[in-house]
């Protein structure tokens, strides 16, 4: 059956309640008549033989690149970099697409007699992956072949001995990236393009960069001018990365970019109801929804979190393209749009969204309040092309429990950021000016980032900058069901129910506002005209 395209529903009297994510739970909310609900296109069909498709892509590169086998020769230095644990979401069922791609690359390298091969997880300032996570992404065979010999490494943005400064762009941006990657004869980058923001020059220029380099585009000014960062041509974030990427190419770093897109088959069949439109729920969907909701109500949040984080998505590969970065990424972006794009007419006064238990930065971890803000106001708010879904001065209503909880091992600087910085100010510009440097250079955070599994000290700042465009644009942010203290700390308003939230929103947008709901999963991209 051909997957149906995206759809905008207008709520009328016959519309059933709409499903909202609420952290580790779901709720059904009845939306006011006349509200719009945006549904993503249905998952595209998977490629029949992913490995064959990958081989085909490697042998038939796009843009100004020779086929991969032709680039491989004995005695060369080959470095394969890959996206880290933040992609895809949730982690996909084995085999992971990175494993499939890298196995093909390694086969070709072996046939060509290449024996100096190093694998690098392109972490940027994310936490290092655990052994289990690396094994999951690469498969046991690759892990066992490389890790024990020290040939499977993770990018260390704080290791001065393994960074190289390639130059400064015409806008004065330092380009400093991983030395092994930059000094290899060939850098193969293996990407998973889950959302339109990923991939392209951002893979290397961000994924393998140092703080010195990242700070030029990871800052409030850039983020306010990225409208949205899901739409590369209108994104200052991408413009900067593209400048850096071109400088990297010009300085002689030879990159063979492999980009993949997945379909939006996000949850296993027992959560099938999540992906279906409510009025099309079968008896079985209704039954599993009620059983799941009832079970979750009786489950302690900690246990529910463990259950959810053990979910592996049945994501399937729908496209793979390889070759020169920009040529590849153009095709990739089109493929992402093919899966996620929905045309939406006009803006709304109120935008509602249910936020799930997971964001790119809390895989196998805790979704702390800063990540809640980042997922809602950073990611979901920016899922647009053209103009924001919500009008300037409008209201965003998030649905999430927002507990005042942090993972001390993964997010140590978040704890202090929430305690000391947000209690002082929530203005991204002020925060960047007053606090960023001391967090970015705090030796303890650097130590935890380099030796443990902690996000870099500056990472919570980036999460807050991700919200900068939304904070700049919106009149008010309301969090339904959120921990009031945590919500207020971020400068948002807590509401106990959606009705209360709508009542509070009326102070900003009047008595008869328009309302639009982003229905996730699956992920979607709104083309707002």
């Amino acid at each position, binding site marked *: 059956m051909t997957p149906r395209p995206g759809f905008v529903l207008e709520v009328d009297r016959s519309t059933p309640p709409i499903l909202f994510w609420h952290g580790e739970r779901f709720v059904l909310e009845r939306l006011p008549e006349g509200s719009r609900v945006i549904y993503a296109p249905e998952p595209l069909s998977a490629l029949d033989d992913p490995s064959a498709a990958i081989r085909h892509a490697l042998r038939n590169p796009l843009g100004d690149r020779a086929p991969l086998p032709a680039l491989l020769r004995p005695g060369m230095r080959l470095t394969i970099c890959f996206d880290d644990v933040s992609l895809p979401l949730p982690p996909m069922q084995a085999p992971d697409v990175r494993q499939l791609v890298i196995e093909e690359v390694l086969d070709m390298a072996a046939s060509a007699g290449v024996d100096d091969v190093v694998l690098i997880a392109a972490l940027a300032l994310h936490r290092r992956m655990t*052994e*289990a996570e690396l*094994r999951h992404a690469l498969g046991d065979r690759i892990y066992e072949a490389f890790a024990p010999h020290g040939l499977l490494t993770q990018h260390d943005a704080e290791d001065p001995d393994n960074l190289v400064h390639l130059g400064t762009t015409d806008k004065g941006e330092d380009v400093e990236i991983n030395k092994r990657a930059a000094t290899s004869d060939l850098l193969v980058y293996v990407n998973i393009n889950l959302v339109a923001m990923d991939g392209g020059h951002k893979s290397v220029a961000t994924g393998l960069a140092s703080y010195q380099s990242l700070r030029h585009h990871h800052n409030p000014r850039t983020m306010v001018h990225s409208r949205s960062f899901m739409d590369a041509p209108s994104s200052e974030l991408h413009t900067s990365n593209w400048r850096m990427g071109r400088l990297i190419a010009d300085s002689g770093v030879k990159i063979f970019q492999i980009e993949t897109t997945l379909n939006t088959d996000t949850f296993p069949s027992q959560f099938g109801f999540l992906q279906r439109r409510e009025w099309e729920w079968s008896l079985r969907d209704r039954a599993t929804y009620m059983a799941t909701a009832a079970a979750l109500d009786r489950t302690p949040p*900690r246990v529910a979190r463990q259950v959810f984080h053990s979910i592996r998505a049945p994501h399937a590969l729908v496209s793979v393209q390889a070759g020169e970065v920009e040529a590849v990424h153009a095709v990739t972006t089109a493929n992402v749009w093919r899966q996620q794009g929905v045309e939406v007419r006009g803006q709304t006064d109120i935008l509602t969204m249910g936020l799930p238990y997971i964001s790119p930065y809390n895989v196998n971890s*805790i979704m*702390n309040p800063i990540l809640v803000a980042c997922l809602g106001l950073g990611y979901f708010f920016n899922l647009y092309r053209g103009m924001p879904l919500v009008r300037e001065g409008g209201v965003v209503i998030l649905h999430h429990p927002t*507990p*005042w*909880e*942090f*993972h*001390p*091992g993964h997010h*140590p600087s978040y*704890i*202090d950021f929430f*305690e*000391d910085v947000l209690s002082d100010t929530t203005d991204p510009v002020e925060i960047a000016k007053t606090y960023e440097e001391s967090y970015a250079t*705090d*030796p*303890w955070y650097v*130590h*935890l980032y380099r*030796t*443990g*599994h902690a996000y870099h000290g500056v990472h919570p700042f980036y999460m807050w900058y991700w919200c900068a465009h939304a904070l700049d644009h919106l009149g008010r942010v309301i969090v339904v069901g959120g921990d009031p203290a945590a919500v207020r700390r971020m400068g948002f308003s807590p509401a106990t129910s959606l009705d209360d939230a709508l009542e509070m929103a009326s102070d900003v947008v009047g008595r008869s506002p328009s309302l639009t709901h982003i229905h996730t999963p699956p992920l979607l991209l709104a083309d707002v005209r």
Partner: protein
Amino acid sequence: MPIRAALAGKRFFVTGATGFLGTALVERILRTVPDAQVVVLVRPGRRASAAERASREILRNDCFDRLRGELADRFEAEITNRLTAVSGDVSRDGLGLDDEGRSLLASCDVVVHCAATVSFDAPLDQAVEINLLGPARVAQALAAARDDVARADVRRAEGVHMIAVSTAYVAGTHQGEAKEELLSESRFSLEVDWTAEVEAARRRRQDLEAESRRPAVLGTFAKGAREELGAAGDHLLAARAERLRDEWIKDRLVEAGTARAQSLGWPDAYPFTKALGERALIETASVPLTIVRPSIIESSLAEPVPGWIRGFRMAEPIIISFARGLLREFPGVPEGVVDVIPVDMVVAAILAVAAGPVPDEPSVYHVASGVANPLRYGRLVELIQDWFGRHPLYDDRGQPISLPDWSFPGRGRVQRQLQRATRAMDAAERLLTLLPVRGRQASLSASLEERNTLAKRALGYVELYGAYTETEARYRVDRLLGLWSTLEDADKDDFCFDPRVIDWDHYVHGIHLPSIVSHARVRTSPARSAVETRPARARRAILAPERHLAAFDLEHTLIASNVVDSYAWLASRHLPASKRPKLVAELMAQGPSLLALDRRDRGDFLRSFYRRYEGAPVAQLETDAWELFFGQLLPRSFPAGLARVRAHRRLGHRTLLITGALDFVIAPLRPLFDDIVCARMAQADGRFTGRLDELPPIGEARAQLLSDYAGAHGLSLAESVAYADSASDLAMLEAVGFPVAVNPESRLAAIARRRGWHVEHWEKAAGGAARLLPVGPLDVRQHATAPLREPV
């Protein structure tokens, strides 16, 4: 002759000048008597000389604010000129005076002896030395000094006059009228051989000293110290046990004093020893003598300012306890007279006596209000209730405290009530110290302890002062009023001591209560004060740039974990799932005995526990320790604590971690601190021997270590901060100027509360510490071998 003129240019010798009456007297002389000189006898302190004490304890009192204001720039010069402090002690024969002191004493015209131990619960021997023998010693020293000087032919005052301050209560509290006459002339007074009483008191002290050293008794002190401090270390326990011994002796001497006094008809040791003191004085004195007997001295009526008071005396704590709702009832007879006299009236009376003729025979004046202008107990209670009804105190939450109705019960009933309450609280407190609580719960038990202390104090008041609200004796003031009638009008204005002028309603409402409420540290408004809270102030002091060193304990101070957890984690790290339950069961079975050993002696515990690492491969454990840190320790850390360490470092303070944990376990923490002192295990052939290289840095060793460390780096411990969670770290906390109790267990919580130490409540990050049992994750591959011995 007017008082000023009569006293002008005279030289006064005053004992007890650092006390309530003495301070007021010295101030009054210096302020009102032209050119008068004052010599004060002051006992040198442990660190301060007599002159320093005089300057700190007399001149800096707010009593002198008025004079300081009047003299302005001339104050220092004037005081230096007119006030001399000599070093001495009324409890020593000859007052412990040196030659210079003796000649100064001989040169004085008026000697006023105010020194006394006024507390009603002084140990008997101390009361005897000061109250009983003190006056006679002053008289004898005065006579001897004058004889010496007479031979040497230097300045000697003509006609010296000694005024001894006693108390109206020497006449006892029983029914009847007490006249202003020597005790020997009184019908009610018993003939008591004071020399025998002195002997008996001194012997009692010796007997108790001997008794307290009996092994069985010494054992109870050691036990008491251990109960209070836990495993704080031998030295601190010994010091505490010795203090308990001192207190034990003191308590028994207090009991002995009260018992002996009551057997002779006085309510307690104070009037008893003062009465015998008068007898001793009369029998041995060879100088002209006047005895002034005030009743209960309270805040001033007018001089130097209305309401001036020094120290908390008899009625004040009772009144404040009542206003705070701690004292529900106080015994007393509503018709009974509370004989109160403002301090400035007593001072004026003394000066009037001094200005008068030198008496040929010893004479007596009462300075009391009970006969001329009685304040009834019932009226006083009404006034107090009425005032606090309109000006209530507030509790911690800002609610006004409502006052109990006073039903004037008998003393026995109140005592029984209070005893029952304190017994119940004692039991609850003992139970709480036994529970392994820490942090806020422990603070709760500390606050229970505080309430208990307050209740015990209330009981003490009832036992001590009950007699004074039931007093039926009336102290006549005929001679005092006679003296009053001879005063010129100007003197009557300036040196008022006529008790009839006191308007009690005004005195209680307008002067006394406002004064004591402002002196007591109580909340008088519901609003949280705008000024910085105490914890905020303490935190600012701790994080002041001028601090030198911040020393941290690890377990439960920065991380909610201990050596057993770490061991269990490491031991289970490479253990297959099938063998884990056994390890856990084994450790849990040993739990109680491990805990008991830890409580008894932490050093022994660590040494014996660390044996378990015998034979473990060093390299493997060093690798696993990093995983232990990130998987187990960091999630159980207190983020605020880790932030505090870094805050100290940013301020340029040196930071030091002192822990009994093993070096390889805490290796991941190294970058957090400038230095780390920890336990180290010996190695042989790449394996641990299970034996420590040296004694682990625990207990009292930490104090020594801190002081060595500070010495080596040129830091001052007085300017340093220490953070710890348990009474076993007491030595370390005591060693520094800024001790901080972090999530204290109940013993340390109690100590911190008593000593006013800053307390921090640091919590684990919500979301951390997912694992219930401290066991390592299962190996992804199952063929690794366990580095530590498997459970047997």
